[in-house]
């Protein structure tokens, strides 16, 4: 039976991991809801963010520069991908979009493997990330607390973008009724490029933040891809609140079940996904009949 300190420590882990998952899944769900595209390359974009952090931190040592650089790099990748590739697929069946983003994901991962090799890279913690925090019942790594804070700030920015800007208004209206948006004089597809890029940026920033916590390898994005699918199914396709709540729920589930039986942690989240599919197929926050 774990102690209170162990329990709280794991709960924090769940929050840290869950918030990263929430960020990644927000990007995925916005792309899915607005463009109708399931971005199989999302995990690869997360990975690119981590490698960008590795490059920038190796040369400049500035964490802020890494965050900014990661965001910028993925923004550019997103713009290029949408313009060159995704754009051709809006009128094609959804399965084709899955295939092409899947292929793109392979390309990104393999190109990275070629450039950096398959060995894992270490990304150092930022100077203000060292040390531990004393929470009374338990000690907790400083950086992980900061992760929660940083992700919270970024999610708030995304929230503001989505709910307090005209662009966000267009996106939310477009998720619901693309035709009506056109009837109101708005060229929705021009917005798609920005939305796709912002989704990619979300994954990339998550990669930058995660990089110091684990080894940076070309295949690191794959587990996050799958877990973000589970989050989006639980939270509801196309729902930003669903992605955030779902991400934290999944993160906590993984973390807390690990405490009792590590072998079954993953099974727990798939069981949750199965339950949602049976009881409430549209997800916690999903809209009826979207998919």
């Amino acid at each position, binding site marked *: 039976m774990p102690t209170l300190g162990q329990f709280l420590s794991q709960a924090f882990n769940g929050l840290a991991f869950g918030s990263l998952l929430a960020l990644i899944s927000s990007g995925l769900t916005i792309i*899915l809801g607005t463009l*109708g595209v*399931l971005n199989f390359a999302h995990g690869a974009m997360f990975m690119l963010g981590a490698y960008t952090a590795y490059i920038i931190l190796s040369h400049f040592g500035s964490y802020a520069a890494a965050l900014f650089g990661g965001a910028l790099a993925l923004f550019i990748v997103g713009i290029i991908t949408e313009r060159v*590739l995704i754009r*051709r697929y809006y009128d094609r069946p*959804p*399965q*084709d979009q*899955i*295939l*092409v983003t*899947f*292929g*793109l994901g*392979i*390309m990104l991962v*393999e*190109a990275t*493997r*070629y450039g950096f090799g398959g060995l894992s890279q270490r990304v150092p913690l930022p100077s203000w990330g060292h040390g531990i925090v004393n929470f009374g019942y338990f000690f907790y790594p400083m950086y992980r607390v900061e992760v929660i804070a940083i992700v919270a700030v970024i999610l708030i920015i995304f929230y503001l973008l989505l709910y307090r800007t005209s662009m966000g208004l267009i996106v939310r209206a477009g998720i619901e009724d693309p035709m009506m948006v056109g009837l109101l004089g708005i060229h929705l597809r021009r917005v798609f490029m920005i939305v796709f890029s912002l989704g990619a940026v979300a994954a990339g920033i998550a990669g930058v933040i995660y990089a110091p916590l684990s080894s940076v390898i070309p295949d690191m994005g*794959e*587990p996050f891809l*799958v877990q973000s*699918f*589970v989050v*989006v*199914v639980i939270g509801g*396709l196309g729902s930003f609140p669903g992605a955030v709540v779902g991400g934290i729920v999944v993160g906590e589930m993984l973390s807390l079940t690990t405490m009792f039986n*590590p*072998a*079954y942690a*993953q*099974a727990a989240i*798939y069981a949750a*996904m*199965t339950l949602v*599919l*049976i009881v409430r*197929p549209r997800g916690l926050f999903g809209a009826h009949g979207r*998919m």
Partner: protein
Amino acid sequence: MKSSSLARWMPEIIVAVALVVLPLVFGANSLDLLTRILLWGLFGLGFSLLFGFGGLLSFGQAAFYGTGGFVTAYLLTGNVIGNVWLSIVIGVGAAALFSVAVGVLALRRVGIYFAMITLAFGELSYFLENSPLSHFTGGENGLPGIPAPSLQLGSFKYVFTGSWPSYELIAALFFVGYVLARFIIQSPVGNVLIGINQNPGRTAALGHHVPGYKLAAFVLAGAYAGLAGALLGIFQSYMPPSAFALDTSGQLVIQTVIGGAEILLGPTIGAAIWLSLRDFLQQVPVLGDLWKFILGFAFVLLVTLLRRGMGGELYALWLRKRPSGLMPATAAAHERLTPAEVVELLQPLTAPEDGALALDVQSVSKSYGGIHANSDVTFKVPAGALYAVIGPNGAGKSTFLRMLAGEEHPDSGSIRVNGVERTATDVTAAAQNGVAKSFQINQLFPHLTVRQNLRLGASGHYRGRIRFDIFRRADSIAAVEKLVDALLDELDLTQHADVAVDTLAYGEKRRLELGLALSSRPSLLLLDEPLAGLSPAEREDVKQLIKNIRRGRTIVLVEHDMDAVFELAERIMVMHDGNRLTEGDPGTIQKDSQVQQAYLGGIDF
């Protein structure tokens, strides 16, 4: 006919010859590659059924590949069962069982959602292999030391160990798998799968149990995957954990798309291309490590430019000359039907007694949120009559008709068809019970011929909700073929019988739409705006068609063309604002001031 039966077996013959000839041509050094290609090809035969024909893109097939492989490997290496053949059978059985469980959950959704769920289950099984079940699976080490199978014939024992025997075993099993898949595709089951791919709603409305067929396709794919996995372990004498990886599911998808999903050999062709290129590129000095990037890039290019994959594009070219493709197009030549025979064949399968009520609707209500689409509507239609339901926009006619067809259920009230309670029916049961609807917007199978469309409809009742008659050809049910001929004659579409539907003119499509509803030989036929979008001449044709098919049948007609309504209907029910306003014969309705008010606006301004 002799020549056509040889044509029917051509693909199997070619494949058999290729299996024998190819290793001889390419030499003993190619055996390993050829065997691996065939393993992926076997894996892909099932996947082609699921994805290419059924339209269901699963990203989790590795779950069943791995299950078949590891169950078989465990039974053999753990000395639980000594017989290799038996272990393979159990392994395949385990894979099939697992696919039932996953299929029941995943098939609740379609498209993107379905892909996501299958991917998640694939990953779940990878995790289960790696951790909780590692005692049985060897965790990240896998299971080595799998013995080779052997055949004992009297005193002669043949052990399948070594390059040639392994190839022989796998080639033989591949061939068996291929022949079975060919049977399935050409059977009524395969036709239904293709129908589900092109128009699942209509397939269900023709009396086929769509969820059952989808699950069957999913389980078949799982079984093929399981067999391929089991053989992989035996071939390598080692079962790798990577069998469960997303990479494996992904490679299957890529190979299938490259080769062409819509042909059974597509995955095999794709595997040949992928694996050969991989071997080749890895030898090239500079590019060596980039092989996967190059192949990934080629894949992206292919999906963008060549929609149907290499094999698929070639097949599509061939199809242009023969639109019916692999599906049986024309049955053997038979005599023309006499008009009397046509009438006889089109009679409803069940008919109520004279004087009985064909349709008895009591006080049905239906609300959506706060909107009362139908409130307490009562409607009775005697056998053999043609009644119409009219009313202004928003009157609730479509909702009413949908409830009669089984597409929706009333919140309260009852619907009896031929005296039997049918309130909670669904469209498939409705079709099996003699109720069919013709849709306002054409719901056809666009890439099939007219004959194939009608065959899908006509076979619904003869085969029942679901049947796994995979060993008969889709055109081999004489009763169905005769009915199709009768329908073609009645619809005046005989000269278009073997062209693809999407090349027909609108008026012809509309007739086919009616024909599909008729093909289940319903005793109660619901017509939803059958004249929608037709020119004046076409209207006359369809009106005459409706009069012709009235014999012995009860019809409920929803229409806005008032001339047609007054011409065809014996009695008319007028709906307004979800209520039944009034009912009467055409003359009375036309003069009814209440009805006029409803249409023109009942308020004083």
